[in-house]
């Protein structure tokens, strides 16, 4: 039941993110290249999150647990990698943008980049460890 609640919550969050993205794209009018990339990354993240949800739902339907010790261990490891990525992206990306493009991104841009990078690293690590077994 607890697993099912988590899955429903994840689906609702995914739907809310997609809806927000839809209104953002509609409201923006002309979209620049960097916005297209950011929207693309968010779509990939939502897609990968939905894959994880689908995988857990599949196990529940078979009468198996949605999470077990291996999946919990993978989540912890992927969370650690995501955290490290968040720290490094917060330090390196503004510096790199400053060096390459010659302007300092504002706090909002940096926050968005940190969330996206850490989220992407989390999901990518999770899927890698998942197919590797540990």
């Amino acid at each position: 039941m607890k697993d099912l609640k988590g899955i429903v919550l994840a689906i609702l969050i995914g739907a809310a993110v997609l809806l927000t993205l839809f209104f953002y794209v509609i409201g923006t009018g002309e979209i620049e290249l960097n916005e297209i990339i950011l929207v693309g990354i968010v779509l990939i993240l939502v897609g990968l999150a939905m894959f994880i949800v689908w995988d857990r739902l599949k196990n529940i339907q078979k009468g198996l647990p949605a999470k077990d010790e291996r999946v919990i261990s993978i989540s912890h490891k992927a969370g650690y990698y995501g955290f490290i990525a968040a720290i490094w992206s917060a330090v390196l990306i503004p510096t790199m943008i400053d060096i390459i493009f010659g302007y300092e991104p504002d706090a909002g841009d940096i926050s968005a980049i940190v969330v996206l990078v850490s989220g992407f690293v989390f999901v990518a690590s999770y899927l890698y460890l998942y197919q590797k077994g540990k």
Partner: protein
Amino acid sequence: MKTRIKELRARYDLTQEDLAKKVGVRRETILFIEKGNYNPSLQLAHDIAKALQTTIDDLFVFEEE
């Protein structure tokens, strides 16, 4: 580390899914343990050994490096 899970499953005519249900884990976890890609916790090793009516010592073969 090698395991005799596959051999013992065959002896008791159990699929990976059956064994996974018995010990309360996902099927893939049994698969990865069989392939030697995942080292289970002592608790899970004990549960699998119990489900296959054997001991942990008999189930897992540790190779000296």
